[in-house]
């Protein structure tokens, strides 16, 4: 009896998630006439992708990837040392520091974005990839620091001490023991930073006007009130391009999600 219920609920969850995603991806390859006539399209084409990417969306896609990579680089360089310190050292002010970082995690992006846009216009960073990456770094940094601290905190101290016993220097221990052991967690942290940037919309749209990242570019006609005129297949193509890499990254990140979200606030 219990197994039947587990099966039914599992199937409902699978359908609830996969039907909308699969149907959207399927529709993005469907021939338009066919799409309007049949529930399941029979003729498929890449035409709409080609057209849509040529309409400037290809460039937005490239920009999104570049901003994401910049965000990874910046947030790793700035955030990993802090994560290491919090995960590895006991020092005065550590708890209040953690609390402060949690607080930074819950600042509304809109409050950050508008003043930064005004500032960026003045210093020439408005509508640039670096400008968007800078604010995406600010958004992802609290996550990077807290996740990295739990990743470094779980590297066994014994192994590091064994390194010292065999005469390694602090730097050698870092490079040959700690970092390799922390690598999978750090990779997940980097992917998460990328995902935050890849999916971020409010700051991306406010800090740019022509050089928009993909989700901001997709939303722009809707903000201008002309979104309804966009042909349906373009909407499906846009969705497929945004969703596919994100779902693949998620496969890898999911093990670390509890550390990223579950621990928030409660410890």
């Amino acid at each position, binding site marked *: 009896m*219990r197994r039947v219920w587990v099966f039914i609920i599992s199937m409902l969850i699978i359908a609830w998630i996969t039907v909308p995603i699969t149907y959207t991806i399927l529709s993005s390859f469907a021939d338009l006439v066919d799409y309007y006539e049949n529930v399941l399209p029979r003729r498929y084409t890449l035409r709409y992708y080609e057209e849509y990417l040529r309409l400037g969306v290809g460039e937005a896609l490239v920009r999104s990837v570049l901003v994401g990579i910049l965000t990874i680089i910046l947030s790793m360089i700035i955030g990993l040392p802090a994560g290491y310190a919090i995960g590895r050292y006991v020092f005065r002010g550590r708890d209040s520091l953690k609390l402060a970082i949690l607080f930074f995690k819950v600042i509304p992006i809109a409050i950050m974005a508008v003043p930064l846009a*005004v500032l960026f216009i003045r210093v020439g960073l408005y509508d640039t990839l670096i400008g968007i990456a800078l604010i995406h770094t600010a958004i992802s940094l609290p996550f990077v620091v807290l996740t990295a601290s739990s990743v470094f905190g779980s590297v066994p101290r014994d192994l590091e001490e064994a390194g010292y016993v065999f005469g390694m220097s602090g730097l050698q221990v870092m490079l040959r023991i700690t970092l390799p052991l922390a690598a999978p967690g750090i990779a997940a942290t980097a992917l998460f930073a990328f995902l935050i940037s890849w999916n971020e919309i409010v700051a991306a749209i406010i800090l740019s006007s022509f050089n928009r990242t993909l989700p901001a570019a997709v*939303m722009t006609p809707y903000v201008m009130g002309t979104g309804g005129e966009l042909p349906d297949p373009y909407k499906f193509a846009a969705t497929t391009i945004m969703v596919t890499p994100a779902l693949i990254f998620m496969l890898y990140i999911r093990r670390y999600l509890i550390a990223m979200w579950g621990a928030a606030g409660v410890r």
Partner: protein
Amino acid sequence: MPSPLRKHIPYILVAPSLAYLAFFISYPIFYTFSLALFGNPSPMVEVMTSPRLGEVALYTTLIIATVIPAQIVIAIFASLFFLNRFRGRELVLYLFIAPLAINEVAAALIWYTMLSSSGFLNKLLINTGVISAPIYFFGYEFIDRTLLAIFLTEVWRATPIVFIIIYAGMQMISRDYLEAADVFGLNLWQKLRYIILPLIKPYIQTALIIRTLFALQVVGPIFILAGEYVRVLATEVVYWYSMRLNPGVASAWALLIGLVTLLLGGLYIKLLRPSAGAT
């Protein structure tokens, strides 16, 4: 190896992050105040007296007050479900949290694909002869149905965050408590009411705070599914900055988001104070 330098290492390591966050977050907060309050007329006064305020307050409240309770309830039952061990659990769990990786614009477009007049639902119902003309979900005459579409999108997309937090809490509950409850013959409802809910209260609190904060910032589903017919605080910020090129009024709306966040955060903390003996 305690040397005077070593004592400072953690502070040196933490400094860049702290400086970065202090600059990119503290500076804008102060600047938001000056942008929103000063000017002639003061943008804040403009916003508070604008005819849109009522509409924005109504829709913001409506969406938050329907979406978030639904998500908490779903997350609690989903957590109970995933405490079971069964074959394929990993896969079902991954799928359930997968929307966490999907941005709001994509999620809104996915539900547009499901619900539009030539979308999955309508085509399915027409082809199987259940209805003869499509059901319209979007457009000026169907604001209540549009709100339903926004509700579905938000529940579909953002329940995983709530779930992950509450599930983490539920995993902390000792199996002994639940087994003891079984021994005493408590049914599911009694177990929830007297054991599980009191123990996961702090997690519900965190989930409420985080989810409310993010819900106040949602723009994608509103712009995409409702166009200009439904306005909330966050869409006003984007609209006034990007379309009307007015940083002052945009900041005033942003400041309202901040105030509402603080207010609701405080309210949750007050209402869900851990009862004595629960921890």
